[in-house]
């Protein structure tokens, strides 16, 4: 979907997009990401590694002439790296005009989670929890809802802390 087409869709469907989350599975847990960030879902592509990158940045891919970085969500959440398989997907998100691909174990579905069904995250205990903005419940299942912006920006603070 092109940028403009996406924006138009956004305008038209802002209401219908509200409270909708795309859910995906990483290491057995189901996560949700606000649908408005999602540009498309693509199958696994050939990834070109870039040196000097943190482990969770697997490299760059060619998305129809546009070069975008890809991030392995397992590694991002401090889970062990697992070789990619047939069901491995790349969710292309656009966060503040920055395109990035998220490598996930598999994509599940689009669910509707009204704001009332979202509970705040528990106190931060594990590192992987930094990106969770809430816990949503849909169809009796628990989904960890991701804060997309933090996925990109958290690294900076992390670097500041370690340096």
């Amino acid at each position: 979907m092109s940028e403009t087409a996406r924006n138009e869709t956004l305008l038209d469907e802002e209401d219908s997009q509200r409270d909708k989350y795309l859910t995906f599975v990483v290491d057995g847990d189901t996560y949700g990401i606000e649908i408005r960030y999602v540009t498309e879902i693509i199958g696994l592509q050939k990834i070109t590694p870039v040196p000097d990158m943190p482990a969770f940045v697997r490299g760059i891919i060619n998305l129809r002439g546009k070069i975008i970085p890809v991030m392995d969500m397992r590694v991002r959440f401090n889970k062990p790296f697992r070789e990619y398989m047939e069901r491995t997907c790349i969710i292309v998100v656009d966060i503040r005009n920055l395109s990035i691909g998220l490598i996930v174990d598999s994509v599940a579905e689009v669910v509707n989670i009204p704001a009332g069904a979202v509970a705040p995250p528990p106190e931060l205990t594990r590192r992987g929890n930094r990106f969770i903005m809430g816990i949503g419940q849909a169809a009796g299942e628990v989904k960890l809802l991701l804060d997309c912006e933090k996925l990109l920006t958290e690294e900076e603070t992390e670097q500041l802390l370690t340096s």
Partner: protein
Amino acid sequence: MSARQGDPIFEAYLAETTQLIEELEELILVCEHEGAFTEEAIHEIFRIMHTVKGSSAMMQYHNIAALAHALEDLFSLLRERPSRQADWSGISDLMLEGVDFTKVELHKLQNGEPADGDASTVIAKVNRLLGKLKDEPDAANGAGGAAASDASTAGTSGESGSATCGSGSAGGMIADPGASDGPRHFAARLIFTEDCQMANIRAYQAVFQLKDRLLDYRHIPENLLDDPDAEAVIRDQGFRLFMTTDRSRDEIYEALSGISYLKDLELESIAEPDGRCGPEPAEEHASRDSPAGGADGGGTDGGGQPAGKTAAAPGRESRTPAQHGTTIQVNVGKLDELMDLVGELVIAEAMVTQNPEIARLQLEQFQKAVRHLQKITKEIQDKVMEIRMVPLATTFQRMHRIVRDMSRKLGKNVALRLIGEETEVDKSVIEHITDPLMHLVRNAVDHGLESAEERAAAGKPETGTITLEALNSGGEVLILVRDDGRGLSRERILEKAKARGLLHRPEADLADREIFQLIFLPGFSTKEEITEYSGRGVGLDVVQQNIAEVGGTIAVDSAPGEGTVFTIKIPLTLAIIDGMNARVGEALYTIPTTSIRESFRARAGDIITDPDGNEMIMVRGECYPVLRIHRLFGVEGGRRNIEDGVLIMAEQDGRGICLFADELLGQQQVVVKSLPRYIRKLNRVRGISGCTLLGDGSISLILDIQGLFNMKHEGEDCHVGDRTERNLAG
């Protein structure tokens, strides 16, 4: 006045006016250089000011319009009497002041700010000059038959000129016995429509159109252009024109009735023109009198001007008309997008033509069509690159202005010579080198060249020369900034470098060139020294940074008493390079072809390893470091045995390095793309300058040879993983 970004009319106005003002500046500098404003130049300047005035008034930028109007008036006057000897350098100064003012205003508009500058000082100056110029001819004309020398006194006497009666010259014209079969006299009254703007200008146009057919004329109001009341007078009483002509009444009537915005026209024959006395008729005469004035032996008037005219005309004239209408301005962003699209087109083409589904089919017609398609895509690619290339001429021309202003300020005689200004570089390169060039030229005038006395004492011509030279050299463009001044002082640089703690090696070890190179170090020079210290180095580190940003380098060489040369080396284009693709394991790398010297296979015995584990190889008696790409970037897979792979010798600034890769895949032009913003934000990727897409859609990383050298110097223990791997391998 609100910002109107995005409004096409506003954009067009900005683009057009900016271009006109640049043309104007160039024109003025050319004229100044020639020592005279030629007739063509004056016409051209008049045309430019007229256009600027019109469009600025339309856009409601009244300050720009008012200034343009004043300058237009000035040149309209000059245009009418081309043979006049005027204070050209004063006029140039004034024009340039106007140019600068307009530039500042345009810049404000560009940034979305209101054009709120006050032009009144400049306008006042223009009007003062205009008044002075207008006063002069009366005396000069009146003296037409008598003493030409009066002209100079009248010129300086200012106001007195306006009181001089113009009858002398007018009478002279009418009395000309060969004029006609009896001149007739007419009186006309022109009434303009209420909605006519600037009636005085219309009246002026009427006079202008008609005057070739008139032997003599005068009008009320007399001063059409800079009498503020003229417009009101014309509105109230109409514009009255008294003419003496040998043409018929009908012809005059017809000519007058063709004037736009005319509401009413009265034309009557009169017996005798009434008494004429006043500056205006005399002034108007000047234009017609001019040929006669020259022939009269009007002294310097006649002599100097035509000569200058013929000398300057060809160069200027042949270029100016061609520039209009044949160029358009395009947003660079659009060109970038176009370039990206072409890159994608090339990839898409490869995906179609090399599609595995048709790979084994015999398709004769299809292959023919493919070749045709490939030819066209190649041409598109070349054209797009060509469009992005712009000659250095505009940038070079700007230096004229700097040299001019600086030389005046410092009282030095400086000649600027431009060589190879037609050399083309990528647009993005131009943007990055303009400031450094200006800096170098300023430095050359200020510090490089000696004063006239010093030069004379040293037996050099008093006029110092600064040469700007551009030339193509392989995939690079060289720009040389050369002066014939005093040269760099080795001792003073050393002294200063020591004082600032920049010297880390024993003095004796340093070659002259290395010492000169010290001036590019940050902290070599500080601001307070611009005035007291005569050496160079004012912010040269910034110059170097700017040039490095576009992948260029700068070096300096100098000989005492003979001058200094700065050599800037920049890549032709940043967008497309010739690259050699190499494979390492699964990864692909592209090495700029310009930096590759050779490639070869090595035998295991050729490799020398020092105690730190650094590998080297001897090639023709010289020792080069060996850099294994798989180690450097931690690539998995790939060949480990030096005999299985290939060594590529890359070179930068005279230093060589051997890169070890699995195999070479071939050479091709690649579109350089920067790494995604997120990647760049995370970490500075060393040794990689960007990436590119190959025909099959795979990504290749472009190696930054300069960066690789730096990594080599930083030591290799930064890659812990490599070390363990090496230990295992060893």
